[in-house]
């Protein structure tokens, strides 16, 4: 059953569409890769961009396939020219209407995930895509990113009393947990 209303867009076309809608306030950097091309957007502008991605009829990204955080932090001191430390929040979006996909990335400072926590903050999209609700909880739990406006930002995989965010590259392996020797 071929849907005539279906018009898939390339990442370049999606990028141009976003540029046209948000210029000159927001800029989008398109990173072309042979695998999945991705678009970088300033973290502060993410919320309104996300709303546009979901509600614009030509884009119509009706589902969020994946949300995760990549911690860019080189722990190997011998490595030459390591990339600057930061966190990337990655959104893989898909449109069932048009059958096209896009990867959106936001760059965040790493903040402080141990001791006196100072976690970076990004606007939640849990009300746009309900799939984001648990994914954002997981990203908070494991990677230490706060999602402002999330209805229920609790840990999801680790116990509530867990200290630290294990998917951070500089996460210290705990010596004990609840009195149990762990090392």
């Amino acid at each position, binding site marked *: *059953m071929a849907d005539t209303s279906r018009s898939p867009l390339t990442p370049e076309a999606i990028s141009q569409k976003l540029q046209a809608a948000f210029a000159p306030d927001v800029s989008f950097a398109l990173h072309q*890769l*042979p*695998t*999945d091309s*991705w678009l970088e957007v300033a973290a502060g502008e993410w919320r309104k961009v996300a709303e546009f991605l979901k509600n614009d009829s030509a884009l119509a990204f*009706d*589902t*969020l*396939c*994946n949300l*995760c955080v*990549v*911690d*860019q932090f080189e722990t190997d001191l011998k490595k030459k020219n390591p*990339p600057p430390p930061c966190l990337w929040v*990655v959104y*893989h979006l898909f449109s*069932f209407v048009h*059958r096209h996909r896009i*990867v959106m990335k936001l760059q965040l400072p790493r903040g402080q995930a141990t001791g006196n926590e100072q976690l970076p903050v990004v606007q939640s999209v849990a009300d746009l*895509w*309900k*799939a984001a*609700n*648990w994914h954002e909880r997981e990203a908070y739990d*494991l990677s230490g990113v706060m999602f402002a406006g999330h209805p229920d930002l609790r*840990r*999801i*995989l*680790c*116990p509530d009393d867990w200290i630290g965010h*294990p*998917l951070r*590259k500089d996460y210290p392996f705990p010596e004990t947990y609840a009195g149990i020797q762990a090392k």
Partner: protein
Amino acid sequence: MPIIVEDPRDIEFDVRTDEMLINMGPQHPSSHGVLRLLLKTDGEIVHEVTPHLGYLHRCAEKIGEHLSIPQWIPYTDRMDYLAGMNMNLGYSLTVEKLLGMEVPERAKVIRVIVAELGRIASHLVGMGAYGLDLGSFSPFLFAFRERELILDLFEEVCGARLTYSYVTIGGVTHDFPEEIPLSPGLAMLTGRTAGEPVSWITAARLFLDWFRPRIAEYHALLTRNHIFVQRTAALGVLPAELAINYNCTGPVLRGSGVDFDLRRDGEPIYTSMYNGYTFQIPVAPFGDAPYGVVLGDNWSRFYVRMLEVVESIRILEQAFDRYPSATGGHRLPYRLTQKLPVGEAYLETECPRGQTGFYVVSDGDPEPVRARVKSSSFCNLAILGDLCRGVLLADVPAILGSLDIMMGEIDR
């Protein structure tokens, strides 16, 4: 005067009782693994369901950052341990997408065969366990008898019965054996002698020929069973829009009437495996559904799985015919500590429970910077709260079972 039909339940449900918290799990037999549900109930009516996860969390993604690419393959089949082949395949294809590698024709045919056998084995457990949830024990025994034969076949190709690590980067670890002893189970059921030397493909064909007529038995036992229909029809109704918003995939999505299957609609690296095969994608609503069934209910999700088993058999028969003439080796070389190209790849494949995605980010080392698994069951479980609002307490396991979740994959 308007006619008022009195529902005897009206009176009972009008009486409000104290709200009660009920803890279900994590060791509950119908929670399909270590899942804990906190139910807020008013008498028999459930107001709120809060799932608590993490009892099986093993930090698989963190481990993946410390292992080279082939070393992480054994961790992928321990996530969805009822469909290890499909998980191995999803991860291997993601890495191949990053490498720009295309596997030989023979490897593709072998992958299709093991992936579809894995799908049948997984759906058999889904069916049997769902019967158990609803109080019917026999289908479970039937399902495990059949599944055992598939595990025997898998054991002959890779030595393992559950955690295969068989599909690997560049193809599969071994070609199908030329000669195997016929397993005692298959020999008994087909009236042959155990240990009789046969080729692997012959044994697999023997299994399929024996298995195909059995499906009508499951339909008689479960699908069209009046009690089963009463427990599943028009319950846990999931509208298509909500399913998409929650990123529900696989049989859960198709049970809500969305015609989408990655084997047909996915990315070229995955769909090229299924090029030239004729198969249907079962999507609700079904013309032959019993009275009372509505789009997106428990029964529809269950029936999608049952029909998928039939389609997998069709694919398998075509793959068996292709196998002898499929050229190219079964594997392209990939070294244990081979360096990855700088870049990233995300790929979803159609696992039995839905679209499981792998995301590999590399900075040029043999170990990835990030090895992420997007679990289909994770998203499918997230709708439980919405589906269980206002249902009877006894219907919670019926709805949960129809989602066919896998805790190993949710908690990773």
